[in-house]
C-alpha cells in the first residue's frame, strides 16, 4: 500500500503548517498590542465623590500620596485616605477648572459661579467671567487669592506645569500665558491657542498636548500650530477630558476620555489602560511617588494605579 505521506505531500503540509503557525503568532502579538484591557465595570459599592455638576481636575499632595484634591464646579474637595472619603476644603463659590502643582504650592484656577460648562465660539469651555487664581501651600486647607500682573482677568480654563516648573494658564478665550516666578507675573505665549481651549499639558522637550471633548488630542511644539493625533476613543469619538504628566518621566502621559488612555511618547500616540463605558475626568500622578496615579469617573468612582497608570483598580 502506498503511503499518504509522499515527499511532495509532506512538503506541502509542512508549508501549510508553517504558514498557520506564523499567522497565529502574528495574531497573538497583534492582539496583545492593540486590544484594550478587559472592560472594567464600576462597582456601585465603591467610594464616591460628593455630587457635583462637573468634575474638572485633580492633584495629589506633594507630601502624601494618599491625599487628593479634586476641583469641581463647587470648589475643591479633599480626601486624606486615597479617595475613600471626601470633604469640601474651600473655594466653594468657584467653578475650579484646574489644579496644578509647583513644588509644595497648589494653584487653583477657574471662574466664580457654579455653572460648569458653556458652548461658545471657541467650543465647549467654562463660562465667561472674572478669572480666579488662588494658591495653597498646605494641601488645600487654606487658599490665598492671587492677582498676578500680565494675566488678563478672564476665566482660567486650564493650568499646566512644564518639567522645568513653569506655570501656564490657558484662558477660555484661547490666550495662553506663562509664569516662572510662582504666579507673581505672567507673559503671553499666544493670544489664540488655535484649537478649542479645554485641557492642556506640557510633556517632554516642551511638547504641548491639548484637546477637547469633540476634536481629540493634538500636539504642538509652540502652542500655536497644532497637529491632530490619530486617536479614537472607546466609543468611536475623539473625547479628551484631562491630562496628567508623570513627574519623573514626562514622556509618560495619562489622558482621560471614555476610560483612561496612556501615552509613552509624550502624547503622540495613545493606548487604553482603563477600559470603561464611563466618561472620566480628573486624573493625576503623585509627585513624590510617580508610580501612583488616580482617576475619577463621571459616575463619581475613584480609581487607583500603582504602576504608573498601566493598570487600575477601583477604590472601594
Amino acid at each position, binding site marked *: 500500500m502506498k503511503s499518504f505521506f509522499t515527499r511532495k505531500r509532506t512538503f506541502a503540509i509542512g508549508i501549510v503548517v508553517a504558514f498557520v503557525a506564523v499567522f497565529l503568532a502574528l495574531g497573538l502579538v497583534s492582539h496583545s498590542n492593540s486590544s484594550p484591557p478587559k472592560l472594567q465595570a*464600576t462597582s*456601585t459599592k465603591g467610594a*464616591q465623590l*460628593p*455630587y*457635583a*455638576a*462637573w*468634575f474638572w481636575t485633580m492633584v495629589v499632595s506633594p507630601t502624601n500620596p494618599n491625599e487628593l484634591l479634586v476641583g*469641581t*464646579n*463647587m470648589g475643591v474637595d479633599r480626601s486624606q485616605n486615597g479617595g475613600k472619603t471626601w470633604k469640601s476644603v474651600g473655594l466653594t463659590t468657584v467653578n475650579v477648572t484646574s489644579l496644578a502643582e509647583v513644588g509644595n504650592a497648589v494653584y487653583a484656577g477657574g471662574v466664580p459661579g*457654579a*455653572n*460648569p*460648562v458653556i*458652548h461658545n465660539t471657541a467650543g465647549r469651555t467654562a463660562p465667561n467671567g472674572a478669572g480666579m487664581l488662588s494658591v495653597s501651600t498646605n494641601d488645600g486647607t487654606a487658599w490665598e487669592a492671587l492677582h498676578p500682573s500680565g494675566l488678563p482677568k478672564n476665566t482660567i480654563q486650564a493650568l499646566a506645569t512644564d518639567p522645568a516648573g513653569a506655570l501656564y494658564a490657558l484662558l477660555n478665550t484661547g490666550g495662553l500665558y506663562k509664569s516662572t516666578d510662582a504666579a507673581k507675573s505672567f507673559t503671553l505665549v499666544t493670544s489664540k491657542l488655535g484649537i478649542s481651549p479645554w485641557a492642556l499639558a506640557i510633556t517632554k522637550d516642551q511638547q504641548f498636548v491639548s484637546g477637547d*471633548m*469633540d476634536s481629540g488630542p493634538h500636539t504642538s511644539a509652540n502652542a500655536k500650530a497644532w497637529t491632530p493625533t490619530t486617536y479614537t476613543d472607546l*466609543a*468611536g*469619538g475623539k*473625547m479628551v477630558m484631562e491630562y496628567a504628566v508623570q513627574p519623573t518621566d514626562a514622556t509618560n502621559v495619562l489622558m482621560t476620555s*471614555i476610560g483612561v488612555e496612556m501615552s509613552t511618547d509624550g502624547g503622540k500616540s495613545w493606548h487604553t489602560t482603563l477600559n470603561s*463605558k*464611563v*466618561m*472620566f475626568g480628573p486624573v493625576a500622578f503623585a509627585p513624590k511617588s510617580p508610580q501612583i496615579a488616580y482617576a475619577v*469617573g*463621571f*459616575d*463619581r468612582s475613584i480609581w487607583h494605579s500603582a504602576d504608573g497608570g498601566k493598570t487600575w483598580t477601583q477604590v472601594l
Partner: protein
Amino acid sequence: MKWGGVVSFFASEHAMRAERTLQRAELPARLVPGPREVSPNCGVAVAFVWNDEPKVEQALAAAKIRFEAIHRYDLDDETGTVGTVRRESVA
C-alpha cells in the same frame, strides 16, 4: 441653575449628541455626571428643565438618539443638591 429632569444613556457619545440636539432646539440642557441611582452605565446624563419633558422626548426621538430613560430628578448646580427619582419612563 436648577434642573428637574435627567436623561440617562447607554453611551457617553449619545449623551453628547443629545445635549447638542436639545440646545439647538433651544431647550436648556447640559451634560452632568449621572446620579448613580439613575444610571451608572456611561457616567454622564443630560439635565433638562422638567417642564420641557415632552419636547425633550420629541427632540431626542426626532434625532433618533438612543437613550435609556427619562427621569424626574432634582439637580442644583449651586448647591450640588440631588434629589431622588420620582418618576421614570423607560424609552
